[in-house]
């Protein structure tokens, strides 16, 4: 075991996969000499000078060429520098990366990984604090992952690299270095599509993912003496672990869904609909959504009004439990 933050855990996963599989390539803006603006790819160019590429500043180009590289037998792990900059590549991702297997009836595939920091709370510029995961989770053909711990980040990234389908791997940047954890030095995988029960409980289920899991844990800690909460970290946003969600809801009968992304048509809307369709009669209270506001994420001076804190989560817990 080693104690690592998320940046270090992802870096270790990349190193180990590049060593294991000679077809793994790293490409993106500033990922080589600079080691990435968050230092996630630090040191990889030195270890594998022929498989790490600093590319021109063009996200669509990075993803479009990655598709070609993947189809020709390589395993590209492309980095998008910030979530606001993944959108120029949205067309390539949705129109081609997600569809090439279906279009060619399985003759060609694009088993690539697109890594991308996501979310707010780091007092950044515009386009550096958004949560666009739902755009991608809406798309058949893609898998979408967002880890909440260094341990999960390493295991999920290794699974993503070994997966035969394209994976969008979102890294919550506010917890890049905020959480340190014991992580096995050896390689391991965490199955894609499986949620993690962070803690068991009987009266209420909180479903969350990414940086918000930590906020939920802190809120639960404050009220643990009078409410028994089960916390689920989804880890994978597509495919959703419906079984984990429904099993928990049937047990507790009360649900809060927490995510940083805006409310309208966010993941919480989909999860809420699934529960309504498949476990409505288990519910003892309406499902509560704690999400980002339906506004454009404010710049740092006003960002705190947008970011979810434990107070909002505790208020929601009390509302649902006392319904």
């Amino acid at each position, binding site marked *: 075991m080693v104690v690592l933050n998320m940046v270090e855990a992802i870096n270790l996963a990349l190193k180990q996969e590049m060593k294991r599989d000679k077809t793994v390539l790293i490409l993106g803006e500033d990922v080589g000499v600079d080691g990435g603006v968050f230092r996630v790819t630090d040191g990889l160019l030195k270890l594998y000078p*022929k498989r790490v*590429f600093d*590319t*021109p500043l*063009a996200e*669509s*180009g990075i*993803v*479009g*060429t*990655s*598709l*070609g*590289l*993947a*189809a*020709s*037998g*390589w395993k590209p792990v492309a980095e998008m520098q910030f979530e606001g900059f993944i959108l*120029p590549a949205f*067309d*390539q991702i949705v*129109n*081609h990366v997600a569809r*090439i*297997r*279906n*279009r*060619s*009836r*399985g*003759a*060609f*595939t694009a088993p690539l990984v697109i890594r991308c920091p996501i979310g707010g709370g780091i007092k950044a510029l515009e386009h550096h604090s958004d949560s666009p995961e739902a755009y991608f989770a809406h798309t*058949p*053909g893609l*898998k979408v992952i967002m880890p909440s711990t260094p341990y999960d980040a390493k295991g999920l990234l290794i699974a993503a690299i070994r*997966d*035969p*389908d394209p994976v969008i791997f979102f890294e919550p940047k506010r917890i890049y270095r905020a959480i340190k954890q014991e992580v096995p030095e050896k390689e391991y995988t965490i199955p894609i*599509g499986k949620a993690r029960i962070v803690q068991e409980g009987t009266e209420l289920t909180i479903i969350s993912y990414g940086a918000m899991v930590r906020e939920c844990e802190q809120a639960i800690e404050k009220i643990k003496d009078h409410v028994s909460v089960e916390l689920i970290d989804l880890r994978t946003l*597509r*495919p959703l672990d419906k079984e984990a969600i429904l099993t928990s809801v049937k047990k507790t009968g009360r649900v809060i869904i927490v995510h940083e992304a805006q409310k309208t048509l966010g993941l919480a809307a989909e999860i809420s609909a699934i529960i309504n369709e498949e476990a409505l009669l288990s519910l003892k209270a309406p499902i509560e959504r704690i999400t980002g506001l339906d506004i454009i994420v404010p710049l740092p001076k006003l960002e705190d009004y947008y970011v979810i804190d434990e107070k909002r989560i505790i208020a929601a817990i009390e509302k649902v439990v006392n319904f």
Partner: protein
Amino acid sequence: MIRKLKTFTVQRLEVLNEHGKEDRRLMPKLSQKQIKELYKWMYITRVFDAKALKLQRTGRLGTYASMLGQEAAIIGSAYALRKQDWLFPSFRISGAMLLRGIDMAKLYSYWGGDERGSKPEKGVNVFPLCITVGEQPLHATGYAWGLKMQKKNAVVLTDFGDGATSEGDFHEALNFAGVFKAPVIFLCQNNQYAISIPVKKQTASETLAQKAIAYGIKGIQVDGNDIFAMLKATQDAIRDAGKGKPTLIEAYTYRMSDHTTSDDAKKYRSEKEVKSWMKKDPMLRLRRYMERKNIWNAKEEEKLQKEVEAMVDKAVKQYESMTPAPKEDIFKYIYAGGAQ
């Protein structure tokens, strides 16, 4: 102080003129048999195309993009490719797909709305054709880059229209190809229109070939109705691509038909203009050359016509007698294990 840093020129290649007379110095080395083969593939392209339009009009095919008038650009370039090379096609290069080994009945089935039609047979180096405009040049560049890193002696040719040169992905592809020295050839079929928009409204550039200059790669305009010039330009580009030098070929041609079967070109261009291009028909030009050389006559033309029509009719029959794909197929290829 202002100093001249660099000047650029844009070249245009012509080998065979409208009267079927060739420029001997530039003529690619071809046997009689090969010349006839070129003509045959142009013929196949034209008959396949005419049949597709007929099938569409009688409700037996879906929306289809005609290649009429562009046969030299399509066949001249594809004929130059070697077996190990790859084609990343647009939606207006069916003739090249056939030449590369795509089964004709299957290609009709694709245009008839069957995804199975875009799965190439094993060993046929053709990527599924791309419907979105100007986006596959990036895939081609990535694929070519991949082949190069695998030390394979192969190049990738990708085609697109004049409209595609306004798309960002086109520019990103040329830029990546230049930076990473990918063995790729960009074939722009400048057929003068992007649906209704003429080239002069598409760009203020005088040529499309010159767009290569900005990316440090070679660009050349070619008489796209001249089969020999197209062949030579592509052969040169293959040689250069193998050395890590990509080329943009602007095949200057004309779309004699509508954009697709959903379009009516009469709305945006004159009959006079279309007629002026009919005189430059690429097939007529090659036929004139062959007749001048006494290697072709009316009898051979008739024989070829019969042969190709029979080939196309057989493919249509095969296409129309195909069993529809099972409905489970719509779920099968979303992920490796099917749909979730």
